[in-house]
C-alpha cells in the first residue's frame, strides 16, 4: 500500500510521555477533569494525579470529589505533563508545584509543529515580569509571573479560609482586589509577547524563547503594541529571520 501522509504539517498535537502541555478544562467528570489539548481526543487529568489544595498526600475521599470544582472549573487553563496512554485515552499528571491552574494571562493557539521539544518549557522573563509556558501541543501561555506556591504557605491559607473555598472574583474584598491588580506595564509586556508569538506563527516560523525575545525587543521601537500585528512589522520579522538563517548557514 502506498501511504499518503503529510506528517510534518500535522495540525493536531502528537503526544509523547513527559511532554509539558497547556490545556483548557472542558468537563468536570467523576474523579477526573477532561482537558482539551488539541489532540484527536480529550486528555484526562485524574483527581489522584493532582495535588490537593492543602498539600497533604492522602487518599481522595468523597468530599474531595465533591470539591473538584474548587480546584479547576470548566474553561480554566491548566498546565500539566503527559503521563501516558491508558485504556480510555491520554492521561496527564500535575503533581508538581509548577503545574496547575494558570491565571492572569493569555492563552495562544499555534500549530504544534512550531514548538520544538527542548529541555525547558517554563520561562520566567525577569525584566518584563512575565511567565511564558511553551506547551508542546501548540498552546502557549503568556501571563503575569506567579511564584510557585510553597506547601507551608498553602497550609496557612487553608487554616485561615476554613470553610470558605477559593475567593471568586465576585466575592473578593477591596484588599484582595488590590493585591490581584496587575500593573499596566506588566500587562503591556504580556501583550507584546503574545503578539510576537502571533506574528511568528502567522509567518510559520519556529517559536523558541530566543526568537520570541528578539521579536519583542524589535517591537519596542513601535509606538503602539497593536502595530505588531500589522504588515510592516511582519516584514521586519521575516527579514530578521532571513538574517538569522543565513548567518546560521554561514556558521554551519
Amino acid at each position, binding site marked *: 500500500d502506498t501511504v499518503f501522509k503529510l506528517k510534518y504539517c500535522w*495540525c493536531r498535537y502528537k503526544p509523547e510521555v513527559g511532554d509539558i502541555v497547556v490545556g483548557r478544562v472542558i468537563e468536570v467528570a467523576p474523579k477526573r477533569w477532561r482537558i482539551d489539548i488539541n489532540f484527536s481526543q480529550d486528555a484526562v487529568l485524574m483527581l489522584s494525579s493532582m495535588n490537593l489544595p492543602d498539600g497533604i498526600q492522602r487518599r481522595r475521599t468523597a468530599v474531595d470529589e465533591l470539591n473538584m470544582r474548587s480546584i479547576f472549573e470548566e474553561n480554566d487553563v491548566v498546565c500539566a505533563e503527559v503521563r501516558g496512554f491508558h485504556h480510555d485515552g491520554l492521561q496527564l499528571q500535575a503533581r508538581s508545584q509548577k503545574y496547575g491552574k494558570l491565571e492572569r494571562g493569555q492563552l495562544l493557539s499555534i500549530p504544534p509543529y512550531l514548538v520544538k521539544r527542548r529541555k525547558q518549557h517554563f520561562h520566567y522573563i525577569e525584566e518584563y515580569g512575565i511567565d511564558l509556558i511553551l506547551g508542546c501541543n501548540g498552546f502557549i501561555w503568556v501571563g503575569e509571573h506567579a511564584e510557585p506556591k510553597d506547601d507551608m504557605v498553602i497550609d496557612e491559607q487553608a487554616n485561615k479560609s476554613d470553610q470558605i473555598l477559593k475567593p471568586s472574583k465576585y466575592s473578593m474584598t477591596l484588599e484582595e482586589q488590590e493585591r490581584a491588580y496587575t500593573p499596566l506595564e506588566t500587562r503591556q509586556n504580556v501583550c507584546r509577547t503574545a503578539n510576537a508569538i502571533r506574528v511568528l506563527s502567522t509567518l510559520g516560523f519556529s517559536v523558541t524563547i530566543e526568537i520570541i525575545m528578539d521579536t519583542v525587543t524589535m517591537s519596542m521601537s513601535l509606538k503602539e503594541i497593536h502595530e505588531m500585528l500589522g504588515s510592516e512589522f511582519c516584514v521586519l520579522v521575516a527579514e530578521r529571520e532571513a538574517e538569522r538563517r543565513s548567518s546560521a548557514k554561514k556558521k554551519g
Partner: protein
Amino acid sequence: MEYVSPEGLRIDGRRPMEMRKLHAEMGVVAKADGSAVFVMGNTKVIAAVYGPREVQNRSQQMSDQALVRCEYSMANFSTGDRMRKGKGDRRSTEISLVVRQTMEACILTHLMPRSQIDIYVQVLQADGGTRCACINAATLALADAAIPMRDLVTSCSAGYLNSTPLLDLNYVEDSAGGPDVTVGILPKMDKVTLLQMDSKLPIDTFDNVMQLAIEGCKAVATYIREVLLENTKQLEYHRGV
C-alpha cells in the same frame, strides 16, 4: 436537441473527450483543520475538514478506529433559481452518504481511534458534476488537514448522448435524461471506490463510458498532485528547509 454538433463540438464548445477547466485552492477556511475549493468549469465546491477530534456523540465512539462524518449541502444561490433549503432533502442525504463511504474507504481510520473526522462540503455554484467536485474537494481538504490516507480519491463523470460518450457533463447535458456515470478511483492503486449510474446503458457502451470516466479521474489526479506539490513547496519555504 443536439448535444453534439456534426463537427463534433458540444454545447459549450468542448470536444466529446475534453474535460472542463480545473482550478483548486487549499487552506481557504482559517478555522478548519483543512479546507479546499475545487472548481470544474462552472461548478464550484468548498470543503472543510475538522478533526481528528473528540467524538461528540459518545455512543458512536469506536475504540479501534475514527468515525467519519460527512455533510453535503447546496448554497441557496448555487442554482439558477434560489433554493429554499440546501440540506436535509433526499438528494443531499444521498450524496452525503456517498461521499462519506468513498472517503472512509481511503482514510486510515485505525490510526486515530476514538476520534471523529467531520467533512463538510458545500456547493457554491452548481453546473453539473457536483458529486465529483465534492469528492475532489474533500480529498484536497483531507490532505490539507494532514489526515493519513491510502491514496488520493478522484472522481469524474461521463455520459452518452447522440451516440457519443461525453466526458464531464455539465448541467444542460446532465438534464438531457441520458445516462450519467460517476466514477471515483484511487489513482495510484488503480481501484474503483465509487460507481454510480443514472438511466440505462447496454453493457459494451457502458464499458466505453466507464473507461472514459476513469481517464478523466486520472487527469484530475494529475492536477491534484500538482496543487499538492505547490502547497508543500510553500510549507518548505516557511520552515526553512
